[in-house]
């Protein structure tokens, strides 16, 4: 991936750079900006559908290297938030299910109670209403030709 270009203005104590919205969604940029509010004056502009322009103005006097470092830290934090957003998306169903179960339990309906188990009731986990009981291989296996397993020659 290409490193985003930046423009440094030493007099204004400012560094300006663009971020592609395809790689960095606005939600992640907002969250990252929030983290940097105490260290820099942040101004956002541009088109969230195409390119977001970020302007970081140091609260303390910074030289060129420090401004570059500030941008680097901003980009690192941005990556951190990207991963967090991705994980949040992946775990959304499970989180909802866990919270839902906790609420049901709070109401007094215990799906895992001894009665249910003794009756041979499997509860709802086998029916998999959320569709989360998918083996890893099925979920992430690349579509296309199935890979052949190498035969291992055995001696003897």
């Amino acid at each position, binding site marked *: 991936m290409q490193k985003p270009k930046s423009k440094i203005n030493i007099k204004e104590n400012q560094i300006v750079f663009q971020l592609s919205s395809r790689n960095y969604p*606005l*939600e992640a940029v*907002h*969250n990252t*900006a*929030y983290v940097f*509010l105490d260290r820099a*004056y*942040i*101004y*956002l*502009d*541009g*088109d*969230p*559908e195409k390119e*977001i322009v970020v302007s970081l*103005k140091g609260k303390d006097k910074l030289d060129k290297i420090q401004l570059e470092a500030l941008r680097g830290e901003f980009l690192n934090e941005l990556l951190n938030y990207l991963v967090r957003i991705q994980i949040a998306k992946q775990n959304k169903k499970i989180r909802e299910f866990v919270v839902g179960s906790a609420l049901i339990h709070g109401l007094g309906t215990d799906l895992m109670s001894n009665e249910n188990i003794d009756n041979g009731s499997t509860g709802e986990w086998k029916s998999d209403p959320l569709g989360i009981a998918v083996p890893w291989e099925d979920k992430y296996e690349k579509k296309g030709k199935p890979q052949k397993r190498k035969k291992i020659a055995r001696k003897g």
Partner: protein
Amino acid sequence: MRKKVSHKREKKSPEKANFINFNKCIYQKRAILKSIADFDELADFDLKEKKEYFVLIIKQKFFSSKNFLDEFSNYVLGLMEK
């Protein structure tokens, strides 16, 4: 004897008129309005809505701070709802 007349005029406190553009796609109007309410005692604000931007004209009342606009813009960012 004629009295000396002072030609010194009272210096009027210069009110700086500044403006800042907030991109409509990035900044929320609710956050800008809340910030204006919070900064109301420090400056006079005039918010205008254009096609792509909210234009905020700021007239400082009591002091001239170089970073007033920057502080204000940071404050707006801090109030943005996720």
